[in-house]
């Protein structure tokens, strides 16, 4: 059986924290712990107006890929609420294909 994962197109992750909070709500995760946690790389200046500054949310071992929601035909709550609409859920093979098409600043998690 194929594994499922989360594809994150972090060119468009704005660091809005909606994934973190939606996940906490859904799974009743207490303060100090997270099912998915935002990381920040940068900001630093490369040259001229070119900067490195990326947010990437990283699912933790508390992430069950929203098993119950998915069973009900819903999207994982982080994917549903993501303000940047930069997260996708599905079988990793399919996501890997999409990843290849997207080019830069994409990451695939199979938590």
């Amino acid at each position, binding site marked *: 059986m194929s594994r499922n994962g989360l594809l994150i197109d972090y060119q468009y992750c704005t660091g809005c*924290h909606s994934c973190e*909070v939606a996940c906490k709500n859904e799974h009743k995760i207490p*303060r100090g712990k997270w099912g998915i946690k935002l990381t920040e790389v940068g900001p630093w*200046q490369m040259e001229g*107006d070119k900067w490195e500054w990326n947010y990437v949310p990283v699912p933790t071992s508390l992430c069950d890929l929203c098993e119950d929601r998915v069973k009900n035909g819903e999207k994982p709550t982080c994917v*549903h609420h993501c303000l940047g*609409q930069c997260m996708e859920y599905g079988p990793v093979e399919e996501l890997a294909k999409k990843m290849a098409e997207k080019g830069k600043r994409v990451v695939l998690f199979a938590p």
Partner: protein
Amino acid sequence: MKLHVKNGRLVKVEGDPDHPISQGRLCIRCLTLPEYVHHPQRITSPMKRAPEDRGKDKWQKISWDEAWDIIVPKIKQLKKDHGAESIVVFGGTGRQACLYYYPLGFASIGTPNVCYPLSGWSCYGPRCSITDYILGAGYPEIDFAGTYPDRYDNPNYVLPKWIMEWGKNPLMSNPDGFFGHSLIDLMKRGTELIMIDPRMTWLGTRSKYVCQLRPGTDAALALAFINVIINEDLYDKDFVANWCYGFDELKERVQEYPPEKVADITWVPAEKIREVARFIATNKPGAIQWGLAVDENPNGVQLGHAILTLCAITGNLDVPGGITLGPPAALLGKWRMETRRNLSPELWDKRIGAKEWPALSTAMATTHPDETLDTLETGKPYKLRMGWFNSSNFITPTCSAQPDRWYRALKSLEFNVVQDTFMTPTAMAFADVFLPLPTFAEADGVVVTHFGRNAVFLGAINQALRVGDTKSDIEVCIELGKRLHPDMWPFDSVEDFFTKQLKPELGIDFNDLREQFVYQPKYEYRKFESGKLRSDGEPGFNTVTGQVELTSTLFEAWGEDALPYYQEPPYSPVSTPELFKEYPLVLTTGARKFTSFHSEHRQISTLREIDPDPEMEIHPDTAAKLGIINGDWVMMENMFGKSKARAKLTPIIHPKVVHATHGWWFPEKPGEEPSLFGVWEANINTLVPHKHIGKLGFGCPMKQMICKVYRIEEGI
């Protein structure tokens, strides 16, 4: 939004995937709504307190009937003895208050004095007024296909080639009628961004151009763009010839702003100014989205005028993928306007600051905010005796300049009513009666984007539950109104009220709207050609000359320069070089975070976990010279006040500039005087002076002050 209620508790909030604008997305303030609704510190019953106990936690719960029995006779007595003008209604921003605090003042209480206590009215009002003077239209907003149910795929829609964000970061700032992350939708489809911002923001790192300017010098930059576009003959000749007034004067004026000179003023290189100007003039369509930085600037009217000029001479007004313009009459705005008929002309004439500031008081139905503080302090032209605070917590650094001065002045009021959801520093300091408000999950209502001035949708708010004994803004308006001015309030219920607003304009009643859920009005482009921008149905714009006034006839009549010009901020390295030696950093304030709406949400622990402390941003080189390391507590201080924050070292800010967040108070600290929930500890607005406003009465220097910064041992 879908709200799940179980046993009288809001258990879950979920975005609605069928909503044409959000498509189910929600920000973290909505996602934490259950925490807000059921927060143990929520006030959910009316309360009273003896006037001598102001500032003390000596509240007594009362019923609504008891509350009315205190409030109604007091208002009647004040009106009889001192006139209705002795009562002032303060209104806050956001929630639903914006729609109702004017009617509350005019039609329920009957006073002409409704006040938005932000120095120079510096939020949204200036942008609306400038648009009114120059274009005679409703609010200009970028075309993000908001009125099309099928959005960006609609055949009439054209994607903007570029969007210029002028002093705005809409991802965080949930701006009135625009869904901030629509910008991301547009970027994915190929729109290029241009940022005009003193900071290199995250959006800046994904933009084609970033003009990182010195805070407050925006008008010079705008004039230099116009200079290049005109001198290089890149402007839209047809649009200028047919629809614009005063082009030759404008051409002459902008000769004073060549890119080299403006580069010195703004710190933006001359070559970049030229490149950006050429890019926006030669790529169509495109749009400028203007932000709070236009309002919070004593030179802001000129800046706004120059930005609208840029939109006009590049031919981007009211075209697909350009800048949409609202019609002259606001959607559902009729009743709000009509509530003024409750006031006699003599009473209306007593509105504070109306005579002194004709430009402001023509466009805004309020008092002049700064004059209102003067009136409180001096008792001139008459003494104010009662304050009604509607969702306004303005001794917290939200909107007022020098909140400490307001705080002292407000002590002179004899009687105060505060409506809010939580006990705030302002309520703790002043309320004699506290009236609790429901959240939007707990009452019926409508939401209309841009307050109807250029609405992309109108939505129904359906009550999902009600915690405790609260009353919504409209319920309070109706109940108080029926007791004081029953002829103004011929509505049987909230539902009846909304139906009577909706029926004549849209032909639907409140229940229809509830079922339909979202109503999207049809948008028409090029209204200046079809005559739909003017009340007389003639082509053109709804201005004195019938054209876009590149040279303003009204400004001249009000004693202001008819053309845009640049003026240095009141305190800056250039205008006050001596002071700048002592306070050698430019201070800009108020950039937003996802975790709060101004002073709101500070008690929501999920959000405080993300942003626990007031923050100031400082360049690592500057911090090193001052011996400050990341996370240190620091003090920002100038000749007006001081404020603490945690230092965040970041290269996104210019070494000569620091930025501080606003809206801080600490619900976890003691509420009683003198602490007032720690409201004076990180009160950045104490550094901003009173009444440093533009000639027409608009603007204030919230975003371009000066200060010094030093490390402190003790934080908050």
